[in-house]
Protein backbone atom coordinates (compact mmCIF):
# COMPACT_ATOMS: atom_id res chain seq x y z
CA UNK A 1 0.00 0.00 0.00
CA UNK A 2 1.53 3.31 -1.05
CA UNK A 3 -0.10 6.52 0.08
CA UNK A 4 2.03 8.71 -2.21
CA UNK A 5 0.44 7.05 -5.26
CA UNK A 6 -2.98 7.30 -3.59
CA UNK A 7 -2.59 11.04 -3.02
CA UNK A 8 -1.26 11.48 -6.56
CA UNK A 9 -4.38 9.77 -7.92
CA UNK A 10 -6.52 12.11 -5.79
CA UNK A 11 -4.57 15.07 -7.15
CA UNK A 12 -5.06 13.84 -10.72
CA UNK A 13 -8.82 13.45 -10.20
CA UNK A 14 -9.01 16.97 -8.76
CA UNK A 15 -7.02 18.49 -11.63
CA UNK A 16 -9.20 16.61 -14.13
CA UNK A 17 -12.30 18.09 -12.47
CA UNK A 18 -10.80 21.59 -12.53
CA UNK A 19 -10.01 21.32 -16.23
CA UNK A 20 -13.21 19.71 -17.48
CA UNK A 21 -16.09 20.82 -15.25
CA UNK A 22 -17.82 24.17 -15.67
CA UNK A 23 -20.11 24.22 -12.65
CA UNK A 24 -18.77 26.35 -9.80
CA UNK A 25 -19.67 23.82 -7.09
CA UNK A 26 -17.84 21.13 -9.08
CA UNK A 27 -14.76 23.34 -9.27
CA UNK A 28 -14.95 23.84 -5.52
CA UNK A 29 -15.23 20.07 -5.01
CA UNK A 30 -12.19 19.57 -7.26
CA UNK A 31 -10.18 22.00 -5.14
CA UNK A 32 -11.31 20.15 -2.00
CA UNK A 33 -10.12 16.87 -3.53
CA UNK A 34 -6.71 18.38 -4.30
CA UNK A 35 -6.45 19.70 -0.74
CA UNK A 36 -7.48 16.29 0.67
CA UNK A 37 -4.85 14.57 -1.48
CA UNK A 38 -2.19 16.99 -0.20
CA UNK A 39 -3.26 16.42 3.41
CA UNK A 40 -3.21 12.66 2.94
CA UNK A 41 0.31 12.81 1.51
CA UNK A 42 1.45 15.07 4.33
CA UNK A 43 0.18 12.83 7.12
CA UNK A 44 1.15 9.53 5.57
CA UNK A 45 4.73 10.64 4.79
CA UNK A 46 5.07 11.55 8.44
CA UNK A 47 3.78 8.22 9.76
CA UNK A 48 7.11 7.55 11.50
CA UNK A 49 6.88 10.89 13.25
CA UNK A 50 3.18 11.38 13.77
CA UNK A 51 3.52 14.09 16.41
CA UNK A 52 5.21 16.65 14.16
CA UNK A 53 3.20 15.82 11.04
CA UNK A 54 -0.10 16.11 12.90
CA UNK A 55 0.98 19.33 14.59
CA UNK A 56 1.82 20.99 11.28
CA UNK A 57 -1.39 19.56 9.85
CA UNK A 58 -3.33 22.11 11.93
CA UNK A 59 -1.86 24.84 9.71
CA UNK A 60 -2.82 22.92 6.57
CA UNK A 61 -6.39 22.51 7.82
CA UNK A 62 -6.73 26.17 8.80
CA UNK A 63 -5.43 27.24 5.38
CA UNK A 64 -7.79 24.78 3.70
CA UNK A 65 -10.76 26.12 5.66
CA UNK A 66 -9.85 29.74 4.85
CA UNK A 67 -9.54 28.87 1.16
CA UNK A 68 -12.94 27.12 1.28
CA UNK A 69 -14.56 30.15 2.92
CA UNK A 70 -13.13 32.55 0.33
CA UNK A 71 -14.17 30.30 -2.57
CA UNK A 72 -17.71 29.95 -1.20
CA UNK A 73 -17.99 33.73 -0.80
CA UNK A 74 -16.85 34.14 -4.41
CA UNK A 75 -19.43 31.54 -5.52
CA UNK A 76 -22.24 33.47 -3.85
CA UNK A 77 -21.04 36.77 -5.36
CA UNK A 78 -20.79 35.27 -8.86
CA UNK A 79 -24.25 33.72 -8.58
CA UNK A 80 -25.74 37.03 -7.39
CA UNK A 81 -24.00 39.12 -10.02
CA UNK A 82 -24.33 36.92 -13.08
CA UNK A 83 -27.34 34.77 -12.20
CA UNK A 84 -25.65 31.51 -13.15
CA UNK A 85 -23.17 29.09 -11.69
CA UNK A 86 -21.93 27.85 -15.06
CA UNK A 87 -18.59 29.52 -15.77
CA UNK A 88 -19.02 29.19 -19.53
CA UNK A 89 -22.15 31.36 -19.31
CA UNK A 90 -20.61 34.10 -17.20
CA UNK A 91 -20.55 37.30 -19.24
CA UNK A 92 -20.26 40.79 -17.78
CA UNK A 93 -23.79 42.22 -17.56
CA UNK A 94 -22.89 45.48 -19.35
CA UNK A 95 -21.39 43.72 -22.36
CA UNK A 96 -24.37 41.33 -22.48
CA UNK A 97 -26.72 44.34 -22.54
CA UNK A 98 -24.65 45.92 -25.33
CA UNK A 99 -24.86 42.70 -27.35
CA UNK A 100 -28.63 42.61 -26.86
CA UNK A 101 -28.92 46.27 -27.88
CA UNK A 102 -26.85 45.75 -31.03
CA UNK A 103 -28.92 42.67 -31.95
CA UNK A 104 -32.13 44.67 -31.44
CA UNK A 105 -30.74 47.58 -33.52
CA UNK A 106 -29.93 45.23 -36.38
Amino acid at each position, binding site marked *: *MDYVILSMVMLAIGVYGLLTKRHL*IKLFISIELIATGATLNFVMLGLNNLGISQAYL*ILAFSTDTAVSAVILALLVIVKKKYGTSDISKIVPIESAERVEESVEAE
Partner: protein
Amino acid sequence: MIVEIVSAGLIISACLAIFFDEAVYSVAALAGTLMLTSLLFALNGAYYAAIFQFAVGIGTLSILFLSGEMLSEKPATKTKLSSSIAVGVLGAVLSLPAIFYTIYTPTQVANSVGFGDALWSYDAVDVVLQGLVILAVAVGIGIVLYQRRKTSSQKLPEVAK
Protein backbone atom coordinates in the same frame (compact mmCIF):
# COMPACT_ATOMS: atom_id res chain seq x y z
CA MET B 1 -7.00 -5.55 4.00
CA ILE B 2 -9.31 -2.94 5.55
CA VAL B 3 -6.91 -0.14 4.61
CA GLU B 4 -6.88 -1.28 0.97
CA ILE B 5 -10.70 -1.38 0.85
CA VAL B 6 -10.93 2.08 2.42
CA SER B 7 -8.36 3.42 -0.10
CA ALA B 8 -10.33 1.96 -3.02
CA GLY B 9 -13.51 3.50 -1.60
CA LEU B 10 -11.71 6.84 -1.30
CA ILE B 11 -10.78 6.90 -4.99
CA ILE B 12 -14.22 5.64 -6.09
CA SER B 13 -16.05 8.33 -4.11
CA ALA B 14 -13.63 11.00 -5.43
CA CYS B 15 -14.38 9.89 -9.01
CA LEU B 16 -18.13 9.94 -8.32
CA ALA B 17 -17.88 13.44 -6.75
CA ILE B 18 -16.46 14.73 -10.03
CA PHE B 19 -18.77 12.66 -12.24
CA PHE B 20 -22.29 13.31 -10.89
CA ASP B 21 -24.27 16.04 -12.65
CA GLU B 22 -26.44 16.91 -9.62
CA ALA B 23 -24.56 19.11 -7.14
CA VAL B 24 -26.14 17.45 -4.09
CA TYR B 25 -25.05 13.97 -5.22
CA SER B 26 -21.53 15.31 -5.82
CA VAL B 27 -21.45 16.74 -2.31
CA ALA B 28 -22.68 13.41 -0.92
CA ALA B 29 -19.84 11.64 -2.74
CA LEU B 30 -17.38 14.24 -1.40
CA ALA B 31 -18.73 13.48 2.09
CA GLY B 32 -17.73 9.87 1.51
CA THR B 33 -14.25 10.96 0.40
CA LEU B 34 -13.67 13.14 3.47
CA MET B 35 -15.00 10.59 5.93
CA LEU B 36 -12.97 7.76 4.37
CA THR B 37 -9.86 9.97 4.57
CA SER B 38 -10.58 10.49 8.25
CA LEU B 39 -11.02 6.73 8.69
CA LEU B 40 -7.72 6.11 6.87
CA PHE B 41 -5.94 8.47 9.26
CA ALA B 42 -7.46 6.69 12.24
CA LEU B 43 -6.50 3.24 10.88
CA ASN B 44 -2.88 4.39 10.57
CA GLY B 45 -2.78 5.70 14.13
CA ALA B 46 -3.00 9.40 13.29
CA TYR B 47 -5.92 10.04 15.65
CA TYR B 48 -5.52 13.81 15.94
CA ALA B 49 -5.42 14.15 12.16
CA ALA B 50 -8.53 11.96 11.94
CA ILE B 51 -10.40 14.16 14.41
CA PHE B 52 -9.33 17.38 12.64
CA GLN B 53 -10.25 15.95 9.25
CA PHE B 54 -13.65 14.83 10.56
CA ALA B 55 -14.43 18.22 12.14
CA VAL B 56 -13.29 20.26 9.14
CA GLY B 57 -15.07 17.86 6.78
CA ILE B 58 -18.38 18.13 8.65
CA GLY B 59 -18.22 21.95 8.53
CA THR B 60 -17.33 22.05 4.85
CA LEU B 61 -20.01 19.54 3.93
CA SER B 62 -22.80 21.29 5.79
CA ILE B 63 -21.98 24.55 4.00
CA LEU B 64 -21.62 22.74 0.69
CA PHE B 65 -25.01 21.03 1.01
CA LEU B 66 -26.66 24.38 1.62
CA SER B 67 -24.83 26.21 -1.16
CA GLY B 68 -25.30 23.24 -3.51
CA GLU B 69 -29.05 23.55 -3.04
CA MET B 70 -29.01 27.35 -3.31
CA LEU B 71 -26.57 27.96 -6.13
CA SER B 72 -27.09 25.11 -8.57
CA GLU B 73 -29.75 24.69 -11.20
CA LYS B 74 -31.26 21.27 -11.81
CA PRO B 75 -29.52 19.54 -14.74
CA ALA B 76 -31.61 18.74 -17.81
CA THR B 77 -30.63 15.07 -17.84
CA LYS B 78 -30.33 12.74 -14.90
CA THR B 79 -27.19 10.70 -14.35
CA LYS B 80 -27.63 7.11 -15.52
CA LEU B 81 -27.06 4.31 -13.03
CA SER B 82 -25.02 2.30 -15.53
CA SER B 83 -22.59 5.17 -16.14
CA SER B 84 -22.29 5.72 -12.37
CA ILE B 85 -21.36 2.05 -11.96
CA ALA B 86 -18.85 2.40 -14.81
CA VAL B 87 -17.23 5.37 -13.05
CA GLY B 88 -17.14 3.35 -9.82
CA VAL B 89 -15.32 0.54 -11.63
CA LEU B 90 -12.92 3.10 -13.14
CA GLY B 91 -12.24 4.42 -9.63
CA ALA B 92 -11.53 0.88 -8.40
CA VAL B 93 -9.09 0.38 -11.30
CA LEU B 94 -7.40 3.72 -10.50
CA SER B 95 -6.89 2.64 -6.89
CA LEU B 96 -5.06 -0.56 -7.91
CA PRO B 97 -1.61 1.08 -8.46
CA ALA B 98 -1.73 2.56 -4.95
CA ILE B 99 -2.55 -0.88 -3.50
CA PHE B 100 -0.03 -3.00 -5.44
CA TYR B 101 2.92 -0.66 -6.18
CA THR B 102 5.22 1.18 -3.82
CA ILE B 103 7.50 4.18 -4.24
CA TYR B 104 10.66 4.20 -2.14
CA THR B 105 10.37 7.01 0.41
CA PRO B 106 13.21 7.19 2.95
CA THR B 107 12.02 7.85 6.48
CA GLN B 108 14.96 8.70 8.72
CA VAL B 109 13.24 11.01 11.16
CA ALA B 110 13.16 10.10 14.83
CA ASN B 111 9.81 8.69 15.89
CA SER B 112 9.87 9.56 19.57
CA VAL B 113 8.22 12.97 19.28
CA GLY B 114 4.66 13.13 20.59
CA PHE B 115 1.92 15.52 19.55
CA GLY B 116 2.29 17.76 22.62
CA ASP B 117 6.11 17.77 22.29
CA ALA B 118 5.84 18.74 18.63
CA LEU B 119 3.55 21.62 19.51
CA TRP B 120 5.47 23.00 22.49
CA SER B 121 9.07 21.73 22.43
CA TYR B 122 9.57 21.89 18.66
CA ASP B 123 7.72 25.22 18.29
CA ALA B 124 5.09 23.90 15.91
CA VAL B 125 2.50 26.08 17.61
CA ASP B 126 4.63 29.14 16.75
CA VAL B 127 4.58 28.22 13.08
CA VAL B 128 0.84 27.63 13.23
CA LEU B 129 0.22 31.00 14.88
CA GLN B 130 2.51 32.73 12.36
CA GLY B 131 0.52 31.11 9.59
CA LEU B 132 -2.72 32.36 11.13
CA VAL B 133 -1.26 35.88 11.41
CA ILE B 134 -0.23 35.78 7.73
CA LEU B 135 -3.74 34.60 6.83
CA ALA B 136 -5.32 37.40 8.87
CA VAL B 137 -3.03 39.96 7.18
CA ALA B 138 -3.95 38.60 3.75
CA VAL B 139 -7.67 38.81 4.53
CA GLY B 140 -7.21 42.33 5.95
CA ILE B 141 -5.37 43.51 2.82
CA GLY B 142 -8.17 42.04 0.73
CA ILE B 143 -10.82 43.91 2.74
CA VAL B 144 -8.88 47.22 2.57
CA LEU B 145 -8.43 46.91 -1.20
CA TYR B 146 -12.12 46.10 -1.59
CA GLN B 147 -13.18 49.10 0.50
CA ARG B 148 -10.78 51.40 -1.41
CA ARG B 149 -12.15 50.18 -4.71
CA LYS B 150 -15.70 50.66 -3.48
CA THR B 151 -15.06 54.24 -2.33
CA SER B 152 -13.19 55.13 -5.54
CA SER B 153 -16.05 53.76 -7.66
CA GLN B 154 -18.48 55.89 -5.61
CA LYS B 155 -16.35 58.99 -6.08
CA LEU B 156 -15.96 58.61 -9.86
CA PRO B 157 -19.58 59.54 -10.76
CA GLU B 158 -19.33 62.61 -8.50
CA VAL B 159 -16.14 63.73 -10.30
CA ALA B 160 -17.83 63.19 -13.66
CA LYS B 161 -20.66 65.50 -12.61
